[in-house]
């Protein structure tokens, strides 16, 4: 509450007259709103023994499922760290990490308001889900020089170092994921007919764009039919019916709505259309989607991932996974195994921030951004072999490498070739 010393002065003479007041306010201008600190002085939201991070993310409404996860994962990570005493920063101080999360209900206007509310109290904004909700205050974050980092959107704008100096995406941009599968398919050398169903927004478009760029020029790949759906649809039966008629043997399904993926899997089986199937990283959970969808009926379900799936038996004994699930319960207030990978991702965001904190030599936002942008080949907990966090590449999010995986009836195996 010390940020508006200028206004205090003005209050004192509010009764005088409007004119005098205007003058006072002008005079007060030099003090600066939000208080530009001197070089090296601590930024807001950080003291010698604690640092506060802000999140605005949907905690109610249609996207509350993944949104809740984006908070739970990071809360679990730092909850466990705080219980051990805190994180040791590069400047020698050990700080506990506090999370201040606000609900935006996926409303850009509310997200911007949440940002306004948090910006002077938190050291950095992080982990929030959504393209429009992050875009709504991107310009403001740049103007205020507030970090907006490791956020959950594959919108390439946030990883454009020049246009977004205070931003950094966490998850691979949508194009990368689509491209990875496209390459695998093109390299197979076999003839394939591809049907595409994508969400009608930047998410779906990004996947399709990446896929198409990878199969461009590959003579063996033919895209026979391309349809879209709306995120608010209750059913995609008609789309599946039409795509089934296309005779495609590969189905590129860029879908982010869990129930719709399940019903798409079921519908295709009813129509006896059994193509090889591609699913994005956020809707390929073995336990929450593939099993209820009866995915073993298909010759192959492919997905891309960089995180270990906790429900997969292959990782049941994995130390990372066990530590993660235990912390999620204890500190993340998340009782059953999440249906969304965003919980894992958010946990990794915590680990990546931890990494940056260890390299920070000054408690300032500038120094933090420098430290964050110098991580190379960091294998965060829960990360799959062959993937890593690398922030030094221009125009790429923190995670830009993904493994293509194939469903084995229970979990996933990393694959090098299609078929």
């Amino acid at each position, binding site marked *: 509450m010390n940020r508006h010393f200028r206004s205090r002065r003005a209050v004192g003479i509010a009764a005088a007259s409007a004119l005098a007041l205007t003058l006072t306010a002008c005079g007060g201008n030099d003090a600066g709103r939000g208080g530009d600190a001197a070089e090296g002085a601590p930024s807001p939201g950080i003291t010698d023994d604690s640092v506060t991070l802000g999140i605005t993310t949907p*905690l*109610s*409404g*249609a996207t*509350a*499922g993944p*949104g*809740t996860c984006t908070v739970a994962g990071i809360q679990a990570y730092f909850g466990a760290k705080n219980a051990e005493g805190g994180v040791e920063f590069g400047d020698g101080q050990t700080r506990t990490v506090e999370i201040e999360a606000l609900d935006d209900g996926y409303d850009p206007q509310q997200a911007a308001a949440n940002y306004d509310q948090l910006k002077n109290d938190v050291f950095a904004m992080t982990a929030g889900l959504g393209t429009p909700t992050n875009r709504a205050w991107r310009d403001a974050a740049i103007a205020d020089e507030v970090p907006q980092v490791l956020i959950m959107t594959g919108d390439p704008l946030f990883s454009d170092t020049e246009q977004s100096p205070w931003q950094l995406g966490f998850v691979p941009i949508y194009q990368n994921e689509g491209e990875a599968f496209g390459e695998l398919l093109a390299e197979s050398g076999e003839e394939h007919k591809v049907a595409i169903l994508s969400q*009608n927004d930047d998410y779906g478009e990004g996947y399709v764009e990446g896929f198409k760029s990878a199969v461009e020029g590959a003579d063996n790949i033919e895209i026979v039919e391309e*349809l*879209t*759906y*709306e995120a*608010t*649809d*209750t*059913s995609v*039966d*008609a*789309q599946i*019916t*039409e795509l089934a*008629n296309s005779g495609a043997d590969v189905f590129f399904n860029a879908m982010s709505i*869990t*129930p719709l993926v*399940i*019903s798409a899997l*079921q519908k295709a*089986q*009813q*129509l*006896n259309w059994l193509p090889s199937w591609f699913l994005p990283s956020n809707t390929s959970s073995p336990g*929450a989607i593939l099993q*209820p969808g*009866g995915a073993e009926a298909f010759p192959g379900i492919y997905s891309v991932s960089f995180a270990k799936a906790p429900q997969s038996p292959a990782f049941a004994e994995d130390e990372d996974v066990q530590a993660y699930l235990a912390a999620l319960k204890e500190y993340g207030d*998340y*009782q*059953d195994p*999440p*249906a*969304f990978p965003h919980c894992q991702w958010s946990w990794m965001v915590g680990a990546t921030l931890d990494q940056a904190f260890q390299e920070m030599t000054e408690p300032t936002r500038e120094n933090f951004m420098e430290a964050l942008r110098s991580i190379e080949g960091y294998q965060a907990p829960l990360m799959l072999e062959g993937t890593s966090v690398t922030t030094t590449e221009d125009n790429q999010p923190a995670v830009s490498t993904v493994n293509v995986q194939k469903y084995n009836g229970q979990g996933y195996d990393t694959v090098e070739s299609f078929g």
Partner: protein
Amino acid sequence: MEKFVQLVVDGLSTGSVYAALALAIVLVHSATGLINFAQGGMAVLAAYFAWWLTNQGLPLIVAILLSIVFSFVLGAAVERWLMRRFERGDPDTAIVVTVGLLTLITGIAGWLWSYNNQQFESLFPLDTVSFLGVSVSVRSIGTTLVIVAAMILLQLLFVRTKLGLALRAVAINPQSAAFSGLPVGRLLMVGWGLAAVLGAVAGALVAPRLTLTPGMLDNALVYALAAVILGGLTSPFGVVIAAWLIGVLENLAAVYVPFIGFDLKVAVPFILIFVVLLVRPQGLFGRKTVVRV
């Protein structure tokens, strides 16, 4: 041709989801003259209750029956302790109260059971029946049959029973209903309770297909309302037909009308409403009511 028929069948199956919710909305409207935005929310709450019971080890059918009882009590209680205060007031206020109720119920479901997706077991198997080259799941057939049965029961309730007549009398004019000795308050509670029961059935039917989440029926609500208006607010039969019509026409327009496509198919029910209501202001099957001056 096969594709065409398959699209029609798909549309009927999607339309059945809308119809299930729409029937409950019609029942409340017939009994109280209100549009209840929270109808879907109450259905979701019932579905969560049933899901929770199955997790406690109860068989699915018992869980659903218990959730039906729970819903009747919930519906009646909502009428008695919440809606009654608003029933004779401004109808806009009453609608907003149901919106608030929807928000509250969604919040309660999210609070008690989290926003995580939950799998709801289906009453009907997911086996496929193929007929003349058209495939349809037993689940869809089962859902549709239950909805048709509910529709017939509701139609009979309104037309053939004393209870139905009394409910309608209360809705049309509570004061004269009271003067003629009807227990208005209790009838209103029964109306809301029955609608909630219908909602509970709808919730249990569609939850396996939509995956149980607190906002499960939010997207279906608009379609259900469209079906209610299109079918004519007074006719259970008309509302189900309208819901099917919407489901089918939407699919056909998306596939066969290039300009509409899958992104703008949502406009179809509204265009339909507009055209139909211009010709028949009371809806497809609604009764004409006399405007009092």
